[in-house]
């Protein structure tokens, strides 16, 4: 067990976490603000006997991931918003084919080319499927560099546990921010895919990994199986509650915004305001029940996001009919500071 502390960017923490988790193949394509990941992987993965490929496109990178995980190994791709749009084809196929790919999105501003600064504009895309068809990803939203490391390791475990693609949804803040982390080495299961992976049909019937179901009723049966899996994922729900117990107002925020809001909450508490933070860590499945418990206690809610309002819809669904949530959206183009959130929080508290 390594106890050595490292001072690294969020992007590097994700790459380090992937290596610790036994990632054997990485496929990427340059795009800001996640380039540290492919650069790190191109340098370090071959030293561990793994393979790095700089793909011709995001489309190809995601399809390489699909191929690699079909062989039962741990593999990853990463990108940022416009590139993640291009990966949606393979992500949909991986969901339909029940393949455990890990995809990192260091969210930048959009739509279109947008900007290269931080944003949470991809929440809908990440949590509602993203590509075509009726499917979900497990989505993890780290708020610190240490959490980026920890959740990357978790992403690989969950991907194989559920045979489902997992997305790590960070942003340009998390990717570019440096913080100390304590790396740790998980136990990586051996041959965790031996029951289903492709390795040549030796001494057994051939295996087919596919998402095409043309026979009468076959697709319906398959999609119900997926739905059952998504329901089971609820036991993986993670969230952080900070000073919520006696709070009159709960601020709901995720990722780096959740972490910035935490600083605001600390300041406001010192001023005597009864405010708390609820930070979803799994964005899908969403911690609706925990939010509903707080709503039943009669608390007020304010959702803060780095977009014009996406997660707020999930929060509203969770807290109604016991409460309503207000919304404050920080616009793209700059980094929010804890001060930026004081006024909207006090306003919601006094409403």
């Amino acid at each position, binding site marked *: 067990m390594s106890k050595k502390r490292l001072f690294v960017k969020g992007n590097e923490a994700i790459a380090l976490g992937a290596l610790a988790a036994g990632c*054997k*193949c990485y*496929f990427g394509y340059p795009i800001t603000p996640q380039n540290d990941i492919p650069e790190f992987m191109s340098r370090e993965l071959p030293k561990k006997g793994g*393979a790095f*490929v700089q*793909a*011709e*496109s995001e*489309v*190809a*990178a995601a*399809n*390489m*991931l*699909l*191929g*690699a*995980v*079909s*062989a*039962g*190994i741990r*593999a990853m791709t990463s990108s940022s918003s416009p590139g993640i749009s291009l990966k949606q*084809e*393979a992500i949909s*196929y991986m969901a339909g*084919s029940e393949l455990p790919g890990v995809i990192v999105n260091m969210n930048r501003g959009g739509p279109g080319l947008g900007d290269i600064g931080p944003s949470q504009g991809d929440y809908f895309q990440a949590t509602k499927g993203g590509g075509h068809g009726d499917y979900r990803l497990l989505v993890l939203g780290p708020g610190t560099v240490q959490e980026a490391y920890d959740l990357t390791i978790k992403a690989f475990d969950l991907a194989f546990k559920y045979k489902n693609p997992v997305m790590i949804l960070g942003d340009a803040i998390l990717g570019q921010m440096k913080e100390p982390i304590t790396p740790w080495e998980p136990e990586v299961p051996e041959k965790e895919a031996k029951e289903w992976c*492709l*390795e*040549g*049909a*030796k*001494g057994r*019937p*051939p*295996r*087919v*990994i*596919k*998402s*095409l179901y043309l026979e009468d009723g076959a697709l319906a049966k398959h999609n119900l199986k997926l739905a059952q899996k998504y329901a089971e994922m609820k036991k993986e729900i993670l969230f952080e509650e900070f000073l919520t117990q006696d709070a009159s107002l709960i601020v709901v925020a995720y990722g780096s915004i959740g972490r910035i809001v935490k600083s605001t909450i600390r300041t406001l508490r010192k001023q005597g305001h009864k405010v708390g933070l609820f930070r979803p860590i799994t964005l899908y499945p969403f911690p609706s029940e925990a939010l509903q418990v707080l709503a039943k206690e009669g608390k007020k809610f304010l959702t803060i996001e780095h977009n014009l309002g996406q997660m707020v819809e999930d929060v509203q669904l969770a807290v109604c009919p016991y409460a309503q949530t207000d919304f404050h959206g920080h616009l793209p183009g700059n980094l929010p500071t804890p001060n930026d959130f004081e006024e909207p929080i006090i306003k919601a508290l006094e409403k």
Partner: protein
Amino acid sequence: MTEKIMFPKPQVLANRPTHYCPGCHHGLAHKLVAQVLEELKLPEKTICVGSIGCSVFIYNYLLLDTIEAPHGRAPAVATGVKRARPDKFVFTYQGDGDLAAIGLAEIMHCANRGERVSVVFVNNTIYGMTGGQMAPTTLVGQKTTTCPGGRCKDREGEPFKMAEIIGSLGGTAYAARTALNDIKNIQKTKKAIKLAFRAQLEDKGFGFVEILSSCPTNWKMTPLQANERIAKEMIPYFPLGEFKNTLGE
């Protein structure tokens, strides 16, 4: 009198009728792939990457571990499989719409990187599965449902010559074009498939074989007329032969 079976059915070829139209060459191409796989003792270590088009059900006919790739992406999927398991034999089986239109970037880069995978490319100058639309390989003047007046060189360009293009790339160890219109060409096709597979097995580089094939249904021809069209119209534009061979034979 004793009977001797000269060309036994390969074990890896499933014992069931195909869904292919009468006179379609996919079944024949499948059989040749199956024969070569068995002659090289590969079935137990093979991962087949299927594609989208008429051959989407290839796993129903070739009894191999198989993954379905999205349209055009088989070379990228094969890259992922091979990088994950370099000890396995990996090949894709793709049509001309899949490989030469939507998948052009993937095939070019897979070949250029010299991925140790092999590609069987069935070129019948048309989108078969979707009902006979214009393909990137449709011949100038050929009528399809989306070029009803015939492909126009000035409007739609000339057909891609994939074997030549792939043969020009540094990572390619073997690139050839063959046809399935007569016995002689069928035998040559089998040889070419074997060389494209050996390019991978001998760690020489990327292996590619383009097979000129018929689509009587969408060409609106009898199987016999379709075979004649391969000789009279396709081969003059798509010359047969090897465009790269670094295997030393």
